[in-house]
């Protein structure tokens, strides 16, 4: 057992750290509104700040958008631990880079796609040339992926897709949908789903914005009206989508903003050390100390699961419980961080960015709004707990 980074890992960590500090736009870390665990700010900010696109291209040049992929597909051929190191640093500096394509679509294609498919898509993803959006959720379907209704009917070499997706985060800034469709409506719900890649520019696609709680455009509803897609865009085998989705969920979990959590806690500590109220430093208040100590413990716990999950992936183990635990721990943590910050900072934390009185550049105010999205997003906390009970303990499904 060894809790240290190896020499190589340590060197890579330094390289990543130096790179980010050098290449990230000045003041980015202080000025971005991104809250660890929240979904609400990223697409919008990428759209309005071209500097992040430049940064992303530089990451792609180094092969860091696809760190753990083989070099033949444009990756850096590194380990998952190294990938985790990269993610930890990226989120510590609140930088952007990895996205749906590199984190979900790419690994799934690598695992389930044909050789032809791999050659067609992986290098473009790794080079950061194309972006994907997740087309899973549908109206009135709640968080249960098995109730997908958007249909795909085979017609010659094509599929013809009809239906609607919603909560489509970043659909308006992406190139392709990574999409779950129902190909066999007569099969049991979980045996008729297929995964397919759909070009956003296809005829019959309409994207309409949904403005989120922050007043930003991150969500969309997307309509599919007789949209034609070549059958070779089906990922892996048809009707195996449910299984692929479950496995992909496990990979996705590694992308938790563990560095961002730690950063935010550090800033909270700085704040209480530097702020007095009624003549007493906040850092001396035992109730505040208690709250921060509790946060520190929970971050430590999430941290351990983070590295263990990465390590399991390197050893070819499928971290399904660990991944659920990690998701559960970090979404609730995101919420607790925001709520504790609100309590500690008082009314000042309710000020939006732009006010000179807003602590942490208004990030707490955003965070309080944004953290709720992860809690109720796909795979709510309740569902995660059920997964742990079922897969982890072998208890019967209720």
């Amino acid at each position, binding site marked *: 057992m060894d809790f240290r980074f190896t020499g190589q890992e340590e060197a890579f960590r330094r390289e990543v750290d130096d790179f980010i500090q050098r290449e990230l736009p000045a003041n980015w870390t202080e000025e971005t509104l991104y809250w660890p665990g929240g979904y609400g700010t990223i697409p919008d900010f990428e759209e309005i700040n071209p500097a992040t696109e430049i940064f992303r291209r530089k990451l792609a040049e180094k092969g860091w958008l696809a760190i753990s992929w083989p070099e033949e597909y444009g990756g850096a051929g590194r380990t998952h631990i190294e990938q985790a190191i990269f993610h930890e640093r990226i989120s510590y500096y609140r930088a952007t880079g990895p996205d749906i394509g590199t984190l979900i679509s790419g690994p799934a294609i690598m695992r389930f796609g044909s050789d032809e498919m791999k050659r067609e898509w992986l290098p473009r993803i790794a080079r950061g040339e194309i972006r994907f959006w997740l087309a899973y*959720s549908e109206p*009135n*379907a*709640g*968080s*249960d992926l098995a*109730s997908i209704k958007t249909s795909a009917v085979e017609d010659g070499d094509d599929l013809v897709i009809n239906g609607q997706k*919603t*909560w489509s985060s970043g659909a308006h800034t992406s190139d392709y949908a990574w999409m779950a469709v129902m190909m066999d409506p007569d099969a049991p719900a979980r045996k008729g789903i297929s995964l397919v890649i759909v070009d956003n520019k296809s005829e019959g696609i309409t994207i309409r914005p*949904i*403005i*989120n*709680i922050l*007043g930003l455009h991150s*969500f969309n*509803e997307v309509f599919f009206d007789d949209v034609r897609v070549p059958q070779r865009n089906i990922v892996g085998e048809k009707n195996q989508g449910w299984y692929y989705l479950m496995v992909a969920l496990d990979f996705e979990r590694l992308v938790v903003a563990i560095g961002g959590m730690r950063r935010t806690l550090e800033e909270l500590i700085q704040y209480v050390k530097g*702020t*007095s*109220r*009624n*003549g007493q430093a906040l850092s001396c*208040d035992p*109730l*505040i100390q208690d709250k921060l100590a509790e946060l520190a413990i929970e971050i430590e716990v999430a941290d351990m699961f983070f590295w263990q999950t990465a390590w399991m992936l390197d050893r070819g183990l499928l971290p399904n419980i660990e991944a659920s635990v990690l998701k559960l721990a970090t979404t609730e943590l995101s919420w607790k961080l925001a709520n504790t910050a*609100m*309590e500690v*900072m*008082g*009314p*000042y934390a*309710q*000020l*939006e960015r*732009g*006010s000179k*009185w807003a602590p942490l550049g208004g990030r707490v*105010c955003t965070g*309080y*709004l944004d953290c*709720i*999205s992860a*809690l*109720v*997003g796909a795979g*709510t906390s*309740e569902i995660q707990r059920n997964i742990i009970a079922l897969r982890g303990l072998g208890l019967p499904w209720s």
Partner: protein
Amino acid sequence: MDFRFTAEDETFREEVRQWLKKEIPQRWIELDAGIWEETEESWALSREFQRKLGQKGWLAPAYPKEYGGLEMSHMRRLILSEELNYNSAPISIEAEISVNWVGSALMLFGTEEQKKKYVTEVAKGDAIFCLGYSEPNAGSDLASVQTRAVEDDDGYIINGQKTWCSYAHYANYCWLGARTDPEAPKHKGISMFVADMKTPGITVRPLINILGRHSFNEVFFDDVRIPKNSLIGEKNNGWYQLVMALDFERSLIGTAAANQRIIDELVQYMIEAKHKGESFANDPLIKDELAEVAVENEVLRMMCYRIAWMYSQNTHPSYESSMSLLFCSELLRRLSNVGMRVLGPYGQLDMDSKWAVLNARIMRIYLSALSIGVGGGSNEIQRNIVAMRGLGLPRQQ
């Protein structure tokens, strides 16, 4: 013991309901501006509504008749407040503060002339006060006021800065705490004033809140000259006057009624969503949490009834108010979190989205829950009051 309202009380409640049905403007319902969400349009509507309330004597129903009130009983005021809030009537928080805090304090400490002027204006809905208590980085403790008021032959000259002044940009007057004796110990040497917001030297700057709206302000006083008769009560005795007046706090019955409205709507939503097969709404954990919150709101109502009843018996609540404030602030947090979970991602949409559910009210209560019980460890303070006055434990250092 009797947990009923009298038949006359029930008739009165019905009268209020009918009146509200007629008088709440359709446009107000469309705007649906909650706490800290006022816009110019909603503010104008609420001012107009408050004047109508004032004409009926329902704006400040407890006031003596000579100052525009009805000398209404405590229980009846409770009923009035419940109905106003359950039906989301256009009352701004500032109007409530003007009536319940400022007006009541003026009634206790003002001269006859001051009462005739300010109290009557408030009761008619003609005047709005903003509070000039908080100062930057001073927390919630009035005793650390730094703003100075220097007396000369003509009156007082005010210099300093106030913050968190809600709706100061609309207010007619500022209810101002300022230090008149800088040599005196912390709790002494503070006096209370009424300052006309149009006085030269007063500058109001907006603080944009979490909803992106302009409700709070910083107010700067730069050599602001106000007349002698702006002083309320005794000079240098302001802190004590305020501590006495603090007990005129706004009853939480309004919050309980507003919560009830939310709970009723959430329940309705869950029942309908279940029919549509929405999985969020089927979760037994969420259902249980909602049930628990519903019960707790029932408790909050009872607490408010009891406090009102104590007043009606001329008993002064001591720790009971702290208890209900504490209970209320924790309940609001839980209610808004449960609500967010019931609605799933739909709860995160603002009211201009066609997908928004329940007019985005849950999201807004999630935000307004923040304004109770946070900052300066105020829940801790309330808990200490319960420990001290209720349990007889020693004061905390």
